[in-house]
């Protein structure tokens, strides 16, 4: 009966992940009263308009930044190219909401830039001439600089795996540089670029921290508001319909493109180290300046702003209970990584040995949890637990289960699990696909049981994938804000929640210290894995 136990356990894993997603849909079919009927249509149009403006702005910017950096770093040799190759992915360590704090602090009236100008040129009326990066523009910049890394990493990997040097090919065909870029290089990397942009788009539409900081009403904040503030599930329903339509569309585009990108990649071991073209002084300088600017704006700028504040207000550093925050953050990271890795293993293996179409469908469905904005997932989770408790648990006169799930680390880890399950599942799947099924067969022929094959062969083989996934989850959990904020227990703070709470009390200077720690820890993990991120 081992066959069935694998089926059952992977079924349960996928099902648990799917529950809140179903709740999101189901809760929107309840009717409630509201006062704002007349204004709804204006709202709906505004939310869609804002979401689209944000989306288009971010897509254009991340496309230019991501592909631009990937292109110069992959094909050309210039001073600093080796450094930029990995330095550019440090932008992953800066969440959009922290970027937003830095942007505001630097450019606001009497902000950091004002101080700099004043100390350089003496007192003056600088405020009017300082550009203000707030509102929609601020949101677009914050989200773009924190997300362009996705496009950069995927596009670079695609360039890296090209079977021949595309620049040489262009030269042989007598193309100009521009022509070969647009006719050969860009099309060859298209699936990777589209996959990167689809990821960026999903994250953009789910963003809560940065857009709410700048006061931009998007579909996500709109759903949150109408669900939470106005108790208006009917309107939330309408909004989610549009949002999920967007997001699920992107999700499938991403999946298809990723498959195509893999199709384009060569068979194992077939990558020749390509010779890069050495740029002359002026062009080399140009490439250097471009990469440096992107690195500076995406990473150094927010870090320096936070550092500046920490230095001028050192009291905030000493007041912060850094050790407690650190251990809370690591505790969450540790639990969620283990849970995610173990259960993704089970369901991956279950899918592999049972070859069930239904299970496969359920798994595919459950990994869409990633597409649901964290803030909505958290509220859906609370709603589901309350409903389940009131309907079933209370009806059978069992003790209430709410305390176990709401406001506990256990509940927090469950929701992280749902949110990041696709990350873990897909990561392992990629590794699994490299293990030939004939290995399984021979293992069974040799008399190994399924569990022995799993533990003795698959697990050691997938060690690297597991390591990489563990670190990716770590980075995501460290940066995660809305789920932690809504579901955390009493007296439990992380760097992310501390930064957010200071910022929402208009104490951006105090938010600098936890932000800085968050960025430093995430950067460390990124650097540990940079080899893997850049190869795979």
């Amino acid at each position, binding site marked *: 009966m081992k066959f069935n136990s694998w089926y059952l356990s992977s079924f349960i894993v996928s099902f648990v992940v799917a529950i809140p997603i179903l709740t999101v849909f189901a809760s929107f079919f309840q009717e409630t009263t509201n*006062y704002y009927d007349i*204004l709804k249509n204006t709202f709906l149009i505004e939310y869609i308009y804002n979401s689209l403006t944000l989306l288009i702005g971010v897509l254009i910017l991340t496309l230019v930044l991501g592909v631009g950096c990937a292109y110069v770093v992959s094909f050309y040799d210039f001073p600093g190219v080796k450094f930029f190759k990995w330095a550019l992915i440090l932008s992953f360590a800066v969440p959009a909401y922290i970027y937003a704090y830095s942007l505001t602090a630097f450019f606001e009236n009497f902000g950091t830039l004002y101080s700099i100008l004043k100390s350089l040129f003496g007192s003056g009326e600088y*405020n009017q001439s300082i550009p203000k990066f707030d*509102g929609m523009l601020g949101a677009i910049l914050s989200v773009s600089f924190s997300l362009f890394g996705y496009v950069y990493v995927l596009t670079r990997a695609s360039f890296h795996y090209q079977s021949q040097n595309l620049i040489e090919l262009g030269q042989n065909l007598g193309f100009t540089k521009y022509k070969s870029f647009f006719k050969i290089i860009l099309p060859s990397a298209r699936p990777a670029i589209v996959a990167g942009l689809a990821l960026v788009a999903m994250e953009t539409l789910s963003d809560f921290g940065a857009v709410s900081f*700048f006061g931009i009403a998007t579909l996500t904040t709109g759903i949150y508001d109408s669900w*939470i503030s106005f108790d208006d599930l009917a309107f939330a329903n309408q909004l989610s319909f549009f949002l999920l339509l967007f997001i699920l569309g992107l999700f499938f585009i991403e999946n298809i493109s990723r498959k195509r990108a893999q199709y384009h990649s060569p068979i194992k071991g077939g990558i020749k180290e390509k010779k890069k073209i050495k740029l002359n002084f002026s062009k080399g300088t140009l490439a250097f300046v471009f990469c440096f600017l992107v690195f500076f704006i995406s990473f150094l700028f927010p870090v320096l702003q936070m550092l500046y504040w920490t230095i001028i207000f050192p009291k905030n550093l000493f007041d912060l209970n850094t050790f407690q925050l650190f251990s809370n953050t690591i505790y969450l990271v540790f639990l969620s990584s283990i849970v995610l890795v173990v259960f993704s293993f089970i369901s991956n293996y279950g899918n592999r040995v049972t070859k069930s179409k239904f299970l496969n469908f359920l798994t595919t469905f459950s990994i869409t949890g990633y597409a649901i904005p964290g803030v909505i997932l958290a509220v859906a989770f609370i709603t589901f637990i309350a409903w389940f408790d009131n309907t079933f648990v209370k009806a059978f006169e*069992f*003790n209430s289960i709410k305390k176990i799930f709401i406001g506990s680390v256990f509940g927090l880890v469950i929701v992280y699990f749902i949110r990041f399950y696709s990350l873990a599942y897909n990561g392992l799947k990629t590794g699994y696909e490299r293990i030939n099924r004939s290995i399984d067969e021979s293992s069974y022929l040799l008399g190994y049981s399924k569990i022995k094959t799993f533990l003795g062969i698959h697990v050691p083989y997938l060690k690297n994938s597991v390591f990489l996934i563990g670190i990716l989850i770590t980075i995501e959990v460290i940066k995660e804000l809305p789920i932690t904020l*809504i579901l955390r227990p009493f007296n439990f703070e992380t760097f992310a929640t501390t930064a957010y709470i200071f910022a929402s009390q208009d104490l951006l200077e105090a938010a600098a210290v936890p932000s800085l720690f968050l960025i430093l820890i995430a950067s460390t993990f990124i650097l540990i894995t940079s080899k893997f991120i850049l190869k795979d």
Partner: protein
Amino acid sequence: MRKLTIISLFFALISSFTIAAEVNIFSARHYDSDIQLYEKFTAATGIKVNVVSGKDKALQKRITEEGADCVGDLYITADAGRLGAFAAKGMMQNAGWSKAIKDAVPAQFRSAKWTGIAKRARIIYYSPERVSANELNGMTYEGLADPKWKGRLVIRKSNNIYNQSLVASLVKNRGKTTTANWAKGVVANMARTPKGNDRAQIMAVAAGEADIAVANTYYHALMLSGKKGAEQQEAAKKVKPFFPNQQDRGTHINISGAGMLKHAPNKANAVKLVEFLLSTEAQNHIVNNTFEYPMIAGVTPNDLVPGKEMNFVMDTKTSVKSYGAKQADALEVMLAAGWK
């Protein structure tokens, strides 16, 4: 299911060990100075204070969905409208405020379910260079809609609760239709699309983007204190506070306050904590850290706060209870006027 019961029994067991002396707070007002106060309270009484902080609405959602299982005792937030609206949803209970609390807090700043802990005023800030004393003579909130301020006013968004409470007080005093027209006038006078917090409005006046701003009193003091850096301290000196409606009902007053949650398991401890927060010691701590006005008599506000002599006319006729009651109307008239 049996397993779950065992687990929940286990959890109940753990919590029954710890509830001996504690009080649980859901707080939308997260100042570090508040935490220091709670520590003082624990030191004095041995009652442990547990806190979850977060955004108002998300906290309210969690409290509501947890229902009878919610272990929260007090809901602390910085607006009477929020306390009132949440109480109106049936999420609070009669707190049984002690005589000490009732004596300390004037009746218009508390209800049976919640009470104010500190006061703040929402006032006008102006640039003395660009606004004459004559122009401001007899200035009221109603006067913000006067066309003479066209392109000269900054105020934050309509989704901001301070604005909702201010407009609710206008709805209460002037009626919905008049306030709806007033809101249109205000929108027409705005120097820019609303953005930023109260401090950003004050800085916009200092930077010359606008001539008058609407903001709470403590933000100006915060800037003057230097806690925001030397530049903002200087900027704060470029604007002057003005207390509106001195000739009639007085300046709009709001509160930070605490409400007793419906299923509070530690009600007596919660009352003790509120008593402590209203003690002279705690009130002195609050006024010097958050720059609010004290709730009790005999404590002087911080030196940097506008109106620190407390010699301005406060609107004590409009009960802060009406802010919650008229909140929906307030938001509706602002949105209808195109107030972003």
